[in-house]
């Protein structure tokens, strides 16, 4: 498998924010002093017990952690192979894993004396989580959201407004997540003194990929303990869906040095990973490039222009991926696959019918891959999948895709 000289996969990034060749700090000079300051503040907070005490208190009493590890018995039976567990992060307050990270960043922002919080959002889950925590702490919140996503995720736009956030529809580019991130960066460059940029995934310039991973790693830490309690051993395979890759990094990170555990990341295959590029599978269908402050695998054309990608899931609709995933892919510690819209929709329905859980479209991609591999595996093979979000936000999209009329019932 990987290089023998590496005796831990958990030491990255290096002091330049690199995971192997990936990551880094590709930002304009105006932002450079800000991200160096953020890095210093985070390094300090990381070793400060009172910072983690505050996190743990809020994770428990505000978010509802730990999230259960649930044996999906009927799904296991139906697929007739591996034993399937779901890590229930969809039960978190605000309905996804995003709030794990937001709490960390907002506590840090408060320590840094920042009063204005900006965020980008695709599906709206990160925007809702940020608006929620800002409401709780009385902070001003501005969320950039692609105009196209504002349309397809209308319920989340309304939620953010109820929570007191200002949602700014982004019309530059083609109006999806990558454009929202561009505009958030433009805001930050303009409002350098009072503003904290709360990034929603393990991307962006160093220290964001490492910091967001550390906040999301609570998912994998809990899953590990819970699995040991339930089964007396670690799972054989862990699986998560990947947009930017934060829920996946959160599940994977604590398991990286347990080399008997197979790690699988599932990218959005859209209409199929082929030359037409109507997908968001950066690792399976892209090549290395530099965007949004880091080097990573990107969907791009021959001229190095970034492509928009395509996925039924707004949360996966991003042409890049966190740099640590690019590294794990290149060294072979994790395996990355893709799942099409059609396959994800099937998994979505199956999960509703067999488990009474309406999953978000994002983890439906991970579930679709579980459906592919579980039947071929023995019954003593344990799979742990990250059910990172609930599907309430997606019911309109799903109804449309299935050709159903919600008013007719």
């Amino acid at each position, binding site marked *: 498998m990987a290089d023998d000289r590496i005796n831990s996969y958990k030491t990255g990034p290096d002091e330049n924010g690199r995971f192997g060749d990936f990551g880094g700090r590709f*930002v304009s000079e105006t932002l*450079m002093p800000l991200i160096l300051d953020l890095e210093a503040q985070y390094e300090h907070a990381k070793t400060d017990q009172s910072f983690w005490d505050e996190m743990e208190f809020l994770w428990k009493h505000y978010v509802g952690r730990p999230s259960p590890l649930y044996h999906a018995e009927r799904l296991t039976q139906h697929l007739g192979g591996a034993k399937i567990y779901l890590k229930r992060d969809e039960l978190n307050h605000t309905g996804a894993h995003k709030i794990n990270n937001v709490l960390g960043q907002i506590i840090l922002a408060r320590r840094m004396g920042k009063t204005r919080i900006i965020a980008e959002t695709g599906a709206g889950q990160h925007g809702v989580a940020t608006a929620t925590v800002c409401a709780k702490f009385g902070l001003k919140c501005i969320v950039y959201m692609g105009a196209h996503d504002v349309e397809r995720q209308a319920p989340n736009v309304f939620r953010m407004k109820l929570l007191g956030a200002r949602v700014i529809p982004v019309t530059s580019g083609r109006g999806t997540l990558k454009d929202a991130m561009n505009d958030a960066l433009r805001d930050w460059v303009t409002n350098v003194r009072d503003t904290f940029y709360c990034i929603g995934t393990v991307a962006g310039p160093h220290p964001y990929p490492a910091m967001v991973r550390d906040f999301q790693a609570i998912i994998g830490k809990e899953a590990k303990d819970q699995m040991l309690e339930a089964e007396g051993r670690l799972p054989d395979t862990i699986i998560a869906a990947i947009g930017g890759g934060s829920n996946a990094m959160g599940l994977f990170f604590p398991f990286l040095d347990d080399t008997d555990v197979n790690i699988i990341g599932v990218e959005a295959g859209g209409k199929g990973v082929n030359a037409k590029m109507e997908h968001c599978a950066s690792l399976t269908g892209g090549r290395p490039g530099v*965007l949004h402050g880091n080097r990573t695998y990107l969907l791009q054309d021959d001229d190095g222009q970034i492509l928009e990608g395509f996925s039924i899931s707004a949360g996966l609709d991003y042409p890049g991926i966190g740099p640590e995933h690019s590294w794990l892919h290149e060294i072979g510690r994790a395996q990355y696959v893709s799942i099409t819209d059609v396959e994800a929709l099937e998994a979505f329905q199956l999960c509703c019918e067999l488990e009474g859980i309406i999953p978000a479209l994002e983890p439906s991609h991970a579930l679709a891959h579980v459906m592919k591999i579980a039947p071929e595996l023995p019954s003593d093979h344990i799979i742990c999948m990250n059910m990172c979000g609930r599907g309430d936000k997606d019911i309109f999209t799903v109804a449309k895709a299935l050709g159903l009329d919600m008013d007719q019932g």
Partner: protein
Amino acid sequence: MTRIDAKFADLLAAGQKAFVAYVMAGDPDYATSLEIVKGLPAAGVDIIELGLPFTDPMADGPTIQLAGQRALEAGQTLQKTLAMAAEFRKSDDTTPIVLMGYYNPIYSRGVDRFLAEAKAAGIDGLIIVDLPPEEDEELCIPAQKAGLNFIRLATPTTDDKRLPKVLTNTSGFVYYVSITGITGAAAAEAGDVGPEVARIKAHTDLPVIVGFGIRTPETSKAIASVADGAVVGSAIVAEIAAGKPVSEVLDFVRSLADGAHRA
């Protein structure tokens, strides 16, 4: 000595400030853009900043974002941008051309290949917005080795402690971004810019040129008078976006250049 160094030596001898004009290569199309670029020296432009279009220009305001989109839609690429510089060089061997843009198209082409091609096309310097000194190994150092100037942006957030780091591998000139913000935003006051330029000059002998937010001959003059020159981008690009004939665009450029030269 690069064309940039030679140009500043000439300006110094003449006791004149520099006027730098930015246009997006390929906006609104290759032929019109080439015609505009060819007309810039006669309109009083001392240094040409040629924008390299990119889909995700995170430091640019709407005016330059849209210019990039128009250029890309009209089929502009890195290769065509270099071809345009080479075409310009056939009739002008003295006006420096600085390529300004983002790293990914260059990285995608391959740094060594790009540098050889850029040098051959007559490019003199590079301003790559998303390559701070922390990433100097990527392009800055190879570019200097290849004989191209690497021009760095200094900003209001670059404090005295950081300035030496920013200036270390800079050559040609220093581009002072007078505001915290994106291109096309409101201009800084000359009264605020002067002390900042002096602060930078205390650390370097390189010329300091100031840009961002300059859109009139008056501001061009005011800013140039407190620095070694002024840069105008969005205001010129806006004229092109409005569909003005090339001669009118160049008349506007001339008025800005005259402003800077009167300083």
